[in-house]
């Protein structure tokens, strides 16, 4: 699965978790550009993504990700390995 299709799957997750039905995610979307993406929302997003893809992020894996694009790349890598 490539990053673009992952982003299209991430969009409804972000819309649900952040309660923003009209949210449009792009590669550059990040906690500083998306409304309500605070630390609790981040925890909730991670839980929802892990459940959706039935994967677990390893310790530290999410640190240093700058935007949704990098997150999608990470998910793609993990799915390819699984």
């Amino acid at each position, binding site marked *: 699965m490539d990053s673009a299709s992952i982003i299209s799957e991430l969009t409804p*997750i972000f819309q*649900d*978790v*952040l*309660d923003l039905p009209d949210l449009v995610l792009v590669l550059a979307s990040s906690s500083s550009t998306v409304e309500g993406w605070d*630390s*609790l929302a981040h*925890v*909730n997003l991670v*839980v*929802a993504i892990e*459940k959706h893809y039935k994967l*677990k*992020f*390893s*310790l*530290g894996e*999410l640190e240093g990700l700058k935007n949704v694009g990098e997150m999608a790349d990470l998910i793609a890598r993990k799915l390819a390995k699984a």
Partner: protein
Amino acid sequence: MPTDLRSLPLDQILRSRKRLRRERSAAPSLRPLRVAVLGGSTTAEVVDLLELVLLSDGFAPAFYQSEYNKFYEDATLDVARVAAFKPDLVWVHTQVLNVSRFPSPGFSEAELEARVAEELGRFQRMWESIQAHVGCQIIQNNFEHPPFPVLGNLDSTAAGGTTRFVYELNRAFARHASADHRLIIHDLNALSARAGHARWFDWERWFSYKILTTPEASWEIAASVASLVAAIRGRAKKCLILDLDNTLWGGVIGDAGIDKLQIGQETPVAEAYSAFQRWCVSLRERGVVLAVCSKNEDAIARSGFAHPDSILKVEHFSAFKANWEPKPDNIRAIAEELNLGLDSLVFVDDNPAERAIVRAQLPMVAVPEVGHEVAHFATIISAGRWFESAAMSPEDLARADAYRANVARVAGQSKFADYGEYLDSLQMTAEIGAFKPVYLERITQLINKTNQFTLTTRRYTHAEIEQIAVDRRYVTLYGRLADTFGDHGLISVIIGRLDGAAVHVDLWLMSCRVLKRDMELAMLDALVAAARAAGAPELRGTYSRTPKNALVAEHYPMLGFSPALPENDPDRSTWTLGVASYAPRNRHIKVN
């Protein structure tokens, strides 16, 4: 009204909770509630979930949360900050990782005691400070078992064990709370045990965000604390309304009749219904009102509780609606009759259609998705946490006194001079009589499944048993036994055939769960009495050996029978007993 939160899948609640919260915040007439959460971990997630549950339960909560791990400071040095928030209650959400000093492996008992006092003192200072400066109800978590007990099994016994330390500390918390009504213990230890540590602790999240629990465990904690809040605020449920057919007993009483109901000990299904009934009775004993709502003829419905194995009796129910009206109407009538709000009712029915119509028409009534497996009813209803109470009421305590007297009596009997004294301590009572219709099902089952304590291993069909029960050429006996451990139900059967000279014992069997209780003596007494009444001078019994019934090879000689033939065949021996000079043998069982 939005759907009951507890009926949604957890993943959906977790993912959509912001929307769920928004929808529920808009509900009219929510009661304001201010909660200060003093946490030993990052509390944002659990508070987020708690807010959602409290909203669903009709509260409009506002929260104060201490900074990460600043629970002690907030309760003591900075208590003014908490007081300024004016909370209605303070929840000290501490967990096992917040214990400040565990004992060391080499500790003596005295050192352990001192360490417990020290740790307890730290929490006591917090509670006293909160009560002095904030003056509100405190909910205090107790502690989970340590996740990594370094001493293994010894960890729970050694004075230096961390598990032992948690036991002692939790016990000290409990003693403290039972003497102080403003302190309520939230039993995190039991909650984590029910969930299981593997589903409880989340080490990735602990190291990443200082959240110690999985999202699932956070949800359990939130739901559990919310149920305590409901209890404190008098919002706990008060009445359990029960359907009858396939809810309190197996089978449809109107079709099958009372004799065919699945209740008692005879089958796994019957045992499960008995266990569920017993649980309902225990709820009633702690103050939950019971009611019946069933589609049935009233008289037929009531007759079900006359079943000898029914633990619930008609008088256990404060309201009884058995008719053909829609259930929501009956539930409304029950609420009026008992003068209870609809929101204090829980409705249990195995029929999903009935659950759906009640849920749709009376959304304030709690309707757990109990499914149709009676074995799971109590677990599912318990999971709703509807019947929490913050303290025992005076009525509860009066009942507790009665229990205490009972406990004292039983405790006095822990040592016995001989086996007879032990049997007496069981306070056994038996019901012995000729076959009657209500027992024929059970009698047939017992006959066809008993292989060990059976002299002839003869099998009979239900039709044959029905025939024998009314045939004057037969002497029939059944025996039930109850003791301090409970009711064992119908456990012994004898069928004797009469001719002029004797009662021929075609069948004598007993369930192995009442071996060595002298029940066979009580049955023999009754058999002799029946033989005398029928004018038969002797009993004739046969032992037919099978691979499984060696247990009773000596049954007849042990009861005082003599061999009928000088050369008795050990595989098929016949025995006689004259009834004229027989003196009753049973000493330890009180027979009806």
